[in-house]
């Protein structure tokens, strides 16, 4: 009887999950395998007749091209710059949201505004703000500067846009971790004479380690695939091309499916590598957090 019941439950479980699983297989697993397959061919949609198996030649030409390494470096600069800033700013935001009673609802609501705004719109808003003709940033700072026409200042604008748009998400994840820190522990530390920074670094931070790690993992992987902001603000000019932009141009602009697929597979490999680094870095603490 119970075995029959178990089998029915098993079948129903799979039945209910199958539409979601099928969709995920169809739109992600199958295309990634297809990308691996395509990456082994010389396959340019502009010259479809020249399609031929070339083995790993596409990977060789990507990995020996300075463009790939430069775009990988650019992507890492943007990822590290924005995630580091977001962690600090997001923690401050979370602390303000946690502590503050003044205008509490307004603060919490306004923080969601950047999250709700389309990335392309946010990127254009900041682009216009820094524009030497239209923008208000140059008059406010009293400088004359074409921010997006130069590599490092363009990175600055791109990182600023990313930070503005995604810090609220980081802050909300951190806030959720912050609310799990028991108040009596903080009170005990206060009684023992710990000052505010000591309470934060010695009590709060260690206790919310999991929340910090999860937030960092999500945002790092998200930042690594940055496309919208760079595409809108510089289009990859001034040496700001990221790996996603390189892949996109190879595939969609130049219709070189073989080469583009090789870039895609390499990006996928990078993301898996980053995720693996995080998981290994957290070790048991992350795994335990995931399971509970």
């Amino acid at each position, binding site marked *: 009887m119970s075995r029959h019941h178990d089998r029915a439950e098993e079948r129903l479980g799979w039945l209910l999950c199958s539409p979601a699983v099928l969709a995920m297989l169809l739109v992600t697993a199958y295309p990634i395998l297809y990308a691996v397959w395509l990456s082994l061919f010389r396959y340019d949609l502009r010259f479809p007749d020249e399609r031929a198996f070339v083995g790993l030649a596409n990977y060789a030409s990507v990995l020996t091209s300075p463009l790939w390494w430069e775009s990988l470096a650019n992507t890492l600069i943007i990822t590290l710059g924005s995630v580091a800033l977001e962690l600090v700013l997001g923690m401050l935001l979370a602390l303000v949201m946690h502590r503050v009673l003044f205008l509490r609802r307004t603060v919490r609501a306004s923080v969601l505004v950047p999250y709700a705004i389309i990335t392309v719109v946010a990127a254009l*808003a900041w682009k216009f703000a820094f524009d030497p003709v*239209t923008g208000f940033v140059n008059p406010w700072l009293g400088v004359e500067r074409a921010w997006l026409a130069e590599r490092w200042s363009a990175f600055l604008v791109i990182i600023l846009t990313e930070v503005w748009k995604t810090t609220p998400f980081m802050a909300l994840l951190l806030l959720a971790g912050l609310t799990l820190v028991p108040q009596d522990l903080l009170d005990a530390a206060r009684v023992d004479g710990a000052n505010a920074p000591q309470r934060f670094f010695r009590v709060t931070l260690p206790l919310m380690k999991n929340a910090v790690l999860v937030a960092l993992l999500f945002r790092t992987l998200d930042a690594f695939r940055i496309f919208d902001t760079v595409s809108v603000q510089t289009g990859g000019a001034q040496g700001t091309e990221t790996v996603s932009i390189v*892949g996109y141009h190879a595939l969609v602009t130049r219709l070189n499916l073989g080469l583009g697929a090789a870039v895609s597979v390499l990006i996928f490999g990078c993301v898996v590598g980053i995720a693996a680094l995080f998981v290994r870095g957290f070790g048991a603490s992350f795994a335990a957090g995931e399971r509970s």
Partner: protein
Amino acid sequence: MSQHPGLLDTLFWRAGSLLVIGYALLPVAWVVSLSLKSAADLNDGRFIPRRISLEHYRAIFADAQFPAALWNSIGIAGIATLLSVLLAMLAAYAIVRLRFRGRQLVLAAALSIAMFPPVTVIGPLFELWRNLGLYDTWLGLILPYMTFTLPLAIWTLAAFFREIPWELDQAARVDGATPLQAFRYVILPLAAPGAFTAAILVFIFAWNDFLFASALTSTSAARTVPAAIALFTGSSRFELPTGAIAAASVVVTLPVTLLVLLFQRRIVTGLTAGAVKG
């Protein structure tokens, strides 16, 4: 001591909250300001417009491109949201309520897709969709949006489902209801708030997407707002029609922002539930 915070302390946190509000709203105010400037004032570099003009709003709705993109965005994001939440509800119910091998597998698959770089599938989808006739169609965007939002929807719904008083479900089962009936008549009404939260999050994702929209569409048959705005061109190829872009941005930003502000508490719960309770 925490009951009687010092004046300095209070001022510090109050200044902090004002800073936060300013930080969040500055670029929004800037775009609204740009959209209301007349064409002649666009380049005056002032943050507050000298005169208010609605000419850019009239211009974008007079042109056929923008209304078409708006309609595509609403339709595609709406349908993708419905499908994603529906499939995710079934899966999340099974994950929370039923014991079956592969539960962890489904959750792990969902998690790995959440971390998946979408640019990886752009090429294969581009090729596949052209062969299947899905290129530049609504369905061609609905499918990827639905799939890439499934993890978010499943995790959010699973977190909500864990909070539901399941004794009711068991009572219905004891009374002779099949698991499916218990789901339909007992759990569905209780799960509605979670489904609604998941729906908002999914809708925002689909509404926001630029990568798929620009790679898998080519005309206003399916081009959504983010792709359309990025493709707006001025009188010359190199001149951005700043005013029109700003007006279009305000039009697509206001409804979603209102939605988010109205349901802020649920969204915060939804965004953090999956990640923290995991």
